């Protein structure tokens, strides 16, 4: 340490580094096989402030965060922590220096208990032994701060994404870090949960922590940020020393042009009912669900996280089996016993968990897209690389997917992964398309693009069901909104009736 | 065909495994003879895998060794190996196990006869009656089959000897120890054990000692030096000694003969004596060095 600090002054001049209460990165650069994804970015995170961090999908937000948190090492540039050189050798060393991160992707060991997950790597000890009692108590306390009602002794497996996200946050809080990075924590949260997280961040900030908050929801950025940094294509595009920045300004900095998206009323649906669900139930999960979707209609499914929306649509898509109720397609009763039979009926589902349920991360974009359709892709039944490439090209164009689709989708940014997942289910034209959280973690531009795709599909006669925890999204897209709470159907609202207050009222169990 | 001799100075040796001391001693004998005569040996170990062994013979042929000495992993797998060598006009000396194909000579014990004599001795020691347990070697190996056969013929003649248990321990001492423990438990009235080789006899003897059943009559085949000690201390009753070291020496000498064009004068079968070793002739057997000079 002392040797380093008495050495030659760093490139960008001494003054930059001398800020005693900040986490700084100077000229941070990162390459992946010749492809530069961060170009000499400077960043300053001051203690006691929240730095809002924005940028399109693939702009490099997660990469930069990972470097700060010691998970990736920069190819060039240097970092300073409270005025001293900072070069973490791994996540452990960053944590020891007081820098924690809540990852964009939920990182849990499903078979271990909630408390165990929260204390991984730093178990509380008593006389050299792991103190399980105090572990559970502390976990419970940390969860309580967030207002989360999760039994710390249960296994993580089976918990909803929202619950897991809360655990992640509680885990970070437990470490009492001086700098925390929240990489899109709200992506899998509903409005209420998001509010709780923002409150929690304010508490952290007031205690003197420096917080980076990454989100594609610009309202949240406005609500929480004291300063804002915008990345574009790996460059520092814009930085504001205030949180008072208009949405338009932010969007312009992100996409480099004017861009406004306003939901407009969808085209009226056609009269024929495509999907008719009556008294659908799965024991202990949901019951008595009845609704219909018409040709060209978009039905929104709203409710608080855990309301059972995902469970309902999974049943329609054949992922789970119903215990009671009937499903009819085009007026004919159908039996949906597995995913293949749902697909045969033209019911396709884009699942909510893109990494766990949607994409085969080790394969290319094209291979993921053709997976459900291989048997019918060519008349001969032989699938060649050429065919796969052709589908990939067509879909990339159709959905404006950027980035290299020939490498495993694991390496794509979150937004592009989501588009690949969507593309997978649009290779064939669906009769009923179910979209579960279709814009989770997707940037404004891509989000608008997805909305356009959804509208176009509806206009072409597809019946669409959209599950979303973003109220604005459901209300903006749908003809009608079905609200669920506690596994029950609370009502179906027409577009005109579906005002946020009314929906929230029905959502509360 | 090879009347003029090959003029080569290398002999290939293919052994099925070194699990049994028998093969270790045979190779020692070969090494001794080869060193005496100024020949080089290429020794291979098939690790108990017959296909692997055929592959190895094939590789010896590729190397153009002058002759192959061959102890097959199992009774008939030899055919392919022999065919391989014959195809290349390389003389084959089979040892320990009689192969199917046409070989230059076979050097080994008569396993049926050996076990017949052994069990006959045992039957007499048992007074023609009592309970017997058999621990077999690797199932399906020719020595297992022949030893079962030889002993079986005696048991037929002694209806009052009851085989109360038949088990298998793969020629392995540790396995035999475990198996014998269970056999002893299940048969409190056991008088005798026939273990098909000495390694297993040692395991059985230790299990018997541990169970305090030192009155058991244990017999086996091989003549391992360790078993001589066990006979001396009374833990083992008798073993049918084979002469692996001498077989090894003879195999090399015969191979050299065949390589120098005297194949015609070699007998098709050179059966080696087996010796029943009991407390009475223990010293004699020890000094004979069937498993090589004392170490």
């Amino acid at each position, binding site marked *: 340490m002392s040797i380093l600090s008495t050495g030659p002054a760093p490139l960008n001049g001494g003054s930059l580094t001398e800020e005693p209460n900040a986490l700084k990165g100077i000229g941070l650069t990162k390459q992946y096989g010749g492809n530069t994804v961060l170009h000499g970015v400077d960043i300053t995170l001051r203690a006691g402030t929240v730095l809002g961090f924005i940028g399109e999908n693939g702009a490099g937000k997660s990469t930069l965060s990972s470097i700060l948190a010691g998970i990736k090492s920069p190819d060039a540039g240097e970092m300073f922590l409270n005025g001293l050189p900072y070069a973490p050798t791994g996540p452990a060393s960053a944590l020891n220096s007081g820098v924690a991160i809540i990852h964009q992707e939920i990182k849990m060991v499903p078979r271990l208990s909630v408390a165990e997950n929260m204390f991984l790597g730093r178990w509380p000890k008593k006389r050299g032994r792991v103190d399980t009692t105090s572990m559970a108590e502390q976990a419970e306390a940390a969860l309580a701060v967030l207002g989360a009602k999760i039994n710390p002794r249960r296994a993580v497996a089976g918990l909803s994404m929202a619950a897991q996200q809360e655990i992640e946050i509680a885990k970070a809080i437990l470490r009492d870090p001086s700098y925390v990075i929240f990489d899109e924590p709200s992506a899998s949260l509903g409005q209420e949960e998001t509010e709780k997280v923002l409150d929690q961040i304010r508490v952290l900030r007031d205690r003197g922590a420096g917080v980076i908050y990454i989100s594609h929801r610009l309202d949240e950025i406005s609500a929480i940020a004291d300063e804002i940094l915008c990345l574009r294509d790996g460059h520092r595009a814009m930085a504001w020393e205030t949180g008072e920045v208009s949405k338009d300004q932010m969007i312009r900095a992100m996409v480099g042009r004017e861009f406004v998206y306003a939901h407009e009323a969808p085209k009226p649906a056609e009269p024929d009912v495509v999907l008719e669900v009556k008294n659908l139930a799965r024991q202990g999960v949901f019951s008595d669900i009845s609704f219909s979707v018409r040709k060209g209609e978009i039905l929104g499914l709203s409710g608080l996280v855990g309301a059972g929306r995902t469970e309902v649509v999974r049943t329609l898509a054949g*992922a789970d089996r119903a215990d009671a109720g009937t499903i009819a397609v085009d007026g004919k009763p159908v039996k949906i016993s597995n*995913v293949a039979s749902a697909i045969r009926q033209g019911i396709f589902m884009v699942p909510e968990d893109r990494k766990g349920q949607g*994409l085969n991360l080790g*394969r290319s974009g094209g291979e993921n897209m053709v997976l459900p359709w291989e048997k019918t892709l060519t008349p001969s039944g032989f*699938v060649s690389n050429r065919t796969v490439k052709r589908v990939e090209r067509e879909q990339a164009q159709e959905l404006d997917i950027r980035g290299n689709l020939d490498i495993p989708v694991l390496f794509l940014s979150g937004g592009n992964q989501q588009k690949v997942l969507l593309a997978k289910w649009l290779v064939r034209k669906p009769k009923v398309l179910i979209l579960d959280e279709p814009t989770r973690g997707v940037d404004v531009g891509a989000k608008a693009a997805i909305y356009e795709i959804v509208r176009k599909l509806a206009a072409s006669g597809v019946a669409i069901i959209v599950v979303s925890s973003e109220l604005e999204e459901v209300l903006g897209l749908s003809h009608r909104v079905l609200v669920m709470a506690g596994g029950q159907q609370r009502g179906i609202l027409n577009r005109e009736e579906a005002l946020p207050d009314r929906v929230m009222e029905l959502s509360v169990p | 065909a090879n009347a003029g001799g090959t003029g080569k100075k290398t002999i290939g040796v293919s052994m099925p495994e070194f699990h049994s001391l028998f093969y270790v001693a045979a190779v020692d004998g070969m090494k001794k003879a080869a060193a005496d005569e100024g020949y080089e040996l290429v020794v291979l170990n098939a690790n108990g895998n017959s296909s*692997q062994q055929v592959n190895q013979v094939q590789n010896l042929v*590729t*190397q153009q060794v002058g002759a192959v000495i061959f102890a097959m992993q199992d009774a008939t797998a030899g055919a392919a190996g022999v065919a391989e060598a014959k195809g290349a006009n390389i003389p084959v000396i089979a040892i320990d196990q009689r192969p199917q194909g046409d070989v230059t000579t076979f050097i080994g014990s008569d396993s049926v006869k050996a076990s017949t004599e052994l069990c006959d001795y045992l039957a007499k020691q048992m007074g023609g009656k009592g309970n017997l347990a058999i621990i077999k070697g690797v199932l399906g190996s020719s020595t297992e089959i022949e030893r079962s056969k030889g002993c079986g013929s005696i048991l037929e003649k002694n209806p009052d000897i009851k085989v109360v248990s038949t088990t298998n321990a793969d020629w392995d001492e540790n396995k035999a120890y475990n198996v014998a423990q269970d056999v002893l438990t299940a048969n409190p009235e056991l008088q005798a054990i026939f273990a098909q080789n000495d390694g297993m006899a040692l395991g059985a003897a230790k299990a018997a000692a541990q169970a305090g059943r030192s009155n058991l009559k244990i017999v086996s085949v091989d003549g391992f030096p360790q078993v001589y000690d066990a006979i001396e201390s009374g833990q083992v009753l008798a073993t049918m000694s084979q002469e692996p070291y001498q077989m090894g020496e003879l195999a090399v000498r015969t191979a050299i003969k065949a390589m120098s064009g005297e194949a015609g004068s070699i007998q098709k079968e050179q059966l080696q004596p087996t010796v029943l070793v009991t407390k009475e002739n223990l010293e004699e057997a020890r000094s004979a060095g069937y498993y090589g000079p004392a170490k």
Partner: protein
Amino acid sequence: MQTRIKQLAKNIPGPVVGLVVICIAMSLLSPYFLTPNNLINVLSQVSYIGMMAVGAALVIILGGIDLSVGSTMALSFMATAFLYKEIGLPFWLAMVCGLLLGAFIGLVNGLLVTFGHVQPFIATLATMFAGAGLALYITNGNPVIGFPDWFLGLSRTRMLGIPLQVYLMLLVFVLAALWLRYRPSGRQLYAIGGNEEVARLSGISVRLAQARVYVIAGFLAALAGLAVGARLDSAQPTAGSASDLLSVIAAVVIGGASLSGGVGSMFSTFIGLLIIGVLNNGLTLLNVSPNLQPVVIGVVIVLAVISDRGNLPLKRT
């Protein structure tokens, strides 16, 4: 230009490099190694392992494991021999029955794994034990000899100097490779091995695919049994030992497949197979002491794969 070559070199998988280096070393050290005859020997020596390795690779790509291939190989050919010698079926029919028995054992594995929810390791461990026992039981441990001449002839017959069984093995490899690459039912193995849930939600009948692959593996093991039988001119109840099983799985894994599924190919399995075959063959030619051979094999295997960093980014980000 130089970087181009470097780039190319980087894309060659580690095992291929390993194989090439081993071959160069062997040919420098032994005058016999690089002869056509010896190379053909290498191929024919590994042919039965190769057939089983194809099945094992399919199972491993799918995310499973099959320990029973060796004993299936022994049992199915023992059954063929028994049906021919003792029951008096015509030999071709006995052969067909043997192959069907192999497929049936595979089916048992498949059903245990899919409907019985038994871990593949345990299911196939059980059939491995059962198969090995039954193989011994049929003839009470005795090997069976005396097959029709045309059958034995198969192993002696050569086309263009290459034994038939080598062609058979190559055919199996090529068919499997084409299946994996071009047919939906083959391609989906990668999807299932990569993420079973994703595959299921894509409408793939995961269980059917799993069961089918175990059946194929069983069938190929029986086919390998025929190849060994024709070569050894006998039916051995104890064929297909643990060391064969190890060679089979090692070929697949050395080639670069991952035991956690989703990764692997027929080409790489073939490379893994050749590494094993060339090592066994070469060390014999070089006259390495039999006790030291395994040591050398161990060291070379590690060296052959250690240079392979190709898959790493997938594992650690």
